[in-house]
Structures are given as structure tokens and as C-alpha cells.
């Protein structure tokens, strides 16, 4: 597996969520994704970016355009140094929210991508990695 290009952008404020969506849309196009897959990736990114801002107190998004034989992929990593998640299993339950959301962001994002990894612990911050292949 090869990394063709990579980069990073801040996800600190509400406006950054919009910018992250736009950046991911462009990356998904560059990656050669069809419209449906672009939309899924952008929506998953939107969820994770907003969590980073709202719960993580702001962080960054790293992106990588991947090559693996004939297929290409887009990997996004959202990381913050916020409070972290005490019970990740609970957080990964449909409908569970500690705030006033629908509690579908994390689980929904997982269903929208090919690979999903959540790393989080209290005091350690949160890291979510998602990948979608063409």
C-alpha cells in the first residue's frame, strides 16, 4: 500500500467543519470515487469533524490518498486532545449521546466507510480513523 499524497488541516471551530467537508469532497473526487461514495465519505467526515469541535474541544484532520494495487482509497484521521471517551462501547451505540445530538454520528460514520477505528481514553484525547476504497 502506497501513500500518494497526504496533508493536514485544523478542525477547531464550527466553520472548520464546513471547510473540512469541502476538502474531503475534493479529495474524494481526486480519489476517483463515484458520487454516492463521495457523499458517504463527506457525511462521515462531517460527523467526525463536528464531534472533534463539539466534544474534543478542537483538533486536526489528517488525510492520505492511498494506492493499493488497482484500487485507490481515502483515509481520514480526526484527532483531538480533549477529555476522551470513558466508555467507547457505549459511545458506539446507536442513539447514545452525552449531549443533545441524535447519537448517530459515530455509528453512522462507521456504516458509511470501509474501515473504522476509534481510539480514545479519558485524559488521552480521541482519534478516529476512517478509510473508504474505490
Amino acid at each position, binding site marked *: 500500500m502506497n501513500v500518494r499524497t497526504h496533508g493536514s488541516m485544523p478542525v477547531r471551530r464550527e466553520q472548520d467543519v464546513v471547510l473540512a467537508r469541502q476538502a474531503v469532497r475534493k479529495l474524494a473526487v481526486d480519489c476517483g470515487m463515484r*458520487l454516492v461514495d463521495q457523499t458517504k465519505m463527506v*457525511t462521515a467526515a*462531517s460527523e467526525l469533524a463536528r464531534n472533534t469541535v463539539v466534544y474534543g474541544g478542537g483538533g486536526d484532520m489528517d488525510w492520505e490518498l492511498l494506492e493499493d494495487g488497482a484500487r485507490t482509497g481515502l483515509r481520514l484521521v480526526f484527532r483531538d486532545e480533549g477529555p476522551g471517551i470513558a466508555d467507547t462501547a457505549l459511545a458506539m451505540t446507536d442513539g447514545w449521546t452525552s449531549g443533545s445530538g441524535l447519537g448517530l454520528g459515530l455509528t453512522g460514520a462507521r456504516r458509511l466507510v470501509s474501515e473504522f477505528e476509534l481510539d480514545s481514553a479519558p485524559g488521552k484525547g480521541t482519534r478516529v480513523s476512517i478509510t473508504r476504497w474505490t
Partner: protein
Amino acid sequence: MAELRQRTLDVLGKNQKWLLDEWNRDLSGSGVGNDNRIGKDELGQQTAEFLDLMIRGATQGGGTGIGTAAWGDVRAFLEALSRSRALQGFDSLQTANFIFSIKRPLFALLQRELGDEPALLAEQLWAISEILDSLGMHTVNSFQKSREDVIRRQQEELLELSTPVIKLWDGVLALPMIGTLDSQRTQVVMESLLQRIVETGAEIAIIDITGVPTVDTLVAQHLLKTVTAIRLMGADCIISGVRPQIAQTIVHLGLDLQGIVTKANLADALAMALRRNGLSVVKG
């Protein structure tokens, strides 16, 4: 700050007319008066008034800087000028140039009249330069503030403009949503829609999301709240513009839109709304 001497003030007072003519000539030479946004007469009035106020300010103000009461009228004049220039679409450089362009005739005048005393000339040129630079800075600052006001107002107008509520038929309203549904905007959209439903007594509201690129959980939450509020008012709601890729994404997200009528496009939604009102569109 160096002070303007009485001798300099006398020179300015005696040569006010000459200064004004030279300044106006320079300005029109540089094309400012030929701009159709601002006429020669208007510009002439502004230069005359500024020169008058500036000489008065310099006479009363001494060497204490332009922040004092003696310069109050000059400052107010420049603030008004900046505001009108900002509204007319000039940039800050063009606006500040109004003041800086008086330097050439002013310096020429002092050189001519105070040339016999080189030390005094140097000191007075410095003093008047300081005053003009401060006035220029004040202009740029007020311009910036006016510009920001103009932009803020335009954004607010845009906010309202881009969320129109359209009456499609008797009892049928359409609300095309465009762009990102951040919370502030969604609030405005919702309020104006609910208001119009009350005003028109509409029975069906169509929320069209064709112009919304991403429907995530936050957008969905706003939509669900809006639909609930519309129902509480006794009206029905249809969401149109649910394109195939959005529909698939909604399913994967796990959003429950059950009980909400959705349509792929506005035309289908309107046809349905008409049918519900007992109407149908036929070819004549």
C-alpha cells in the same frame, strides 16, 4: 509632535484659495473627479470643506495631535467621507489618497513661502506631514470600520435572501434551502417558514433540500424539528430534493425519517400536494 508656527498658519490662511485650486487640479488630473461614482462638484465641495476645517483645526489645536477637541470637526468630516466612499465601493487606498494628495501643493507652498528659513521650513514640513499622516490613518481606520459594517449588513441581507418562502399554490408553500444548514441560519429559516404558514394559512409546506450538499445528523435534526413544529401548527410537510446519494447516506447513518413524506424533486412534491388538495394537473 512639532507645532505649526503662527507664520505657517498665516501662510495657509492667505493662500487657501490657491491651495484649493492646486489640490483640485491634481485630483482631477489623477482622474478622481471623472469617476462616475463621485462628481466634480461633490469632490470640489469635499476638498473645500476639508481644507477649511483642517486650517481651523491646526489654528486651534496647536501641537497636541489630532485626538483633541480642536480636531473634532475634521475627524467627523473624515468619518462621514469614509462612510460614503465605502458605500460607493472605493477601496481604502483611494479613500486615503484624498488626504495624501494635498501634500504636493501644501509642501510646494511652504517651500515657496518659508524658503528663506531652511531650518524652520524643515520643521514645519515635518509638523504638517505628521498631521496629514494622522488624518490619513484616521481615514483608513474609519473606512475599515464602515466597510465591515457594509459587509455585515450585506451578509445579513444574504441570510434572508437565500431563504425565501415561496407560495406555489393556494395553501402550498415551498422553502428551498440552499447551502450549509448551520444552526444560526436554520433558525432563521424555521422562524420565517412558521411565520409564513401562520400568515397564509398554508396547509402544506414543502422543504426542498436540493441545494443542501450534505445531510448529516445535525442537518437531519434541524429538519426533524422543523417538520414537528409545522405539524404542531396543523399543517403537513413534504421534504423534496432527496437525491439517490442522499437517500442512501441517510439510510446508512441510521436516520429515521419514517412518518415524513420525502420526494426526489420539487415537481413530484408539488404534484402530491395538489393531489392532497383534491387538484390535479392535466394537459389542456
